[in-house]
């Protein structure tokens, strides 16, 4: 089935099987391997991306459901070689250890600030409930979001 979608500002018009999951399209067809496949059961959040400005788990959505959508993945955050403020904050605050959860975690953290530019610790923790870090580095992730907020990353 032919679909049209925009990913990180670039247009794609693939012919996909209805059962192709969006994460598999992004990674295996479009070659965007930033979003990760962790649990594949919509619990871990490693595959988090934005579809039409809302954070979603791309392992639990068919590519055909994104027909006509504007998709943003971790690869689309940096602009002109300059990291997004949330990426910069993760870098500076040691918001990652092994890095596996990081692409999804950064997308989820960006979504927190998009709706709430100055979240409390509780609001940050509530906002990343759908993302698991098996290194358990949550405190530094919370610090990263606070640093990004202080740097004005929220809309």
């Amino acid at each position: 089935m032919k679909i049209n979608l925009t990913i990180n500002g670039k247009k794609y018009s693939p012919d996909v099987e209805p059962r192709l999951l969006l994460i598999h399209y992004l990674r295996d067809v479009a070659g965007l391997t930033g979003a990760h496949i962790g649990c594949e059961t919509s619990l871990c959040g490693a595959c988090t991306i934005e579809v039409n400005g809302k954070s979603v788990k791309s392992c639990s959505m068919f590519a055909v459901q994104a027909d006509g959508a504007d998709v943003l993945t971790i690869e689309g955050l940096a602009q002109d070689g300059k990291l997004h403020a949330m990426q910069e904050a993760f870098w500076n605050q040691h918001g990652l250890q092994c890095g596996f959860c990081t692409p999804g975690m950064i997308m989820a953290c960006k979504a927190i600030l998009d709706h709430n530019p100055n979240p409390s610790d509780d609001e940050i923790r509530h906002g990343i409930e759908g993302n698991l870090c098996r290194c358990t580095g949550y405190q530094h992730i919370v610090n990263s979001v606070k640093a990004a907020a202080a740097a004005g990353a929220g809309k």
Partner: protein
Amino acid sequence: MIPQTFEYTAPKTLDEAMVLLEGGGKPLAGGMSLIPMMKLRLATPEHLIDLGRIKDLDYIREAAGELHIGATATHSSVENSALVKAKCPLLAAAAGAIGDPQIRNVGTMGGSVAHADPAADYPAALQALEAKIVIRGAKGERTVSAADFFVDAFTTTLDAGEVVREVVVPVEQAGTGTSYMKMPQPASGFAIVGVAVRVRRGGGKITLARIGVTGLSNIGYRASAAEKALEGSAGTADDIMKAAALVTQGVDANSDLHASAEYRKHLASVYAARAITAAASKA
């Protein structure tokens, strides 16, 4: 994990969808339960009818003292709706307790209700709100109460070819306090036990008590014995404890690896006491 092959159609109108559903298609709303089930091949529909492109199903509006929530309104739109927060805060609280932000951005009211997961959050609130479910079928529409809609785990009164069109809840009267409290399974966020409470006071007494419980049994239910104990009482801490002890009366509690039946019943009373106390403090 790759689902079995299927045909996919995304109609633009409900009328088109009804024709396709009558032909044996399986409705897809947000897919937050259906897609994981398809990946595990617990569900193998041959034809998916995506309701996500039907604009007429995505709404939240007020009419004649009630709120109407369209089937494809997402949990996050219910949670964040100024209308729902002001006029039916219990429903907004239940929506905000579902899963996680990404799930709430995609999962829908109609999909959750039709799926009838025994550990879902909405059933507790819908029972306490005495909500109505509007069902669209080939022969027209019918409306059933939440009490009659949920039949068993993953089983509702929906017949083949029927879909949930909207959920209707009352606009909360002034002076009503509400609360939804749950013990979530830490990874999935599903309710091990969840209790939704509405309490109204008048003349120094509790004049109305509605208590919905989810997670404990195969379906969300109204804890009638606890409601009766609370109504007419002064709503003291002692009255609340006595009522909370009754929320599991006559109920067959589920047992699984997350919680034994005995522990679930204990949790239900604890969370009922907390939710009644919170609701009563706002009434």
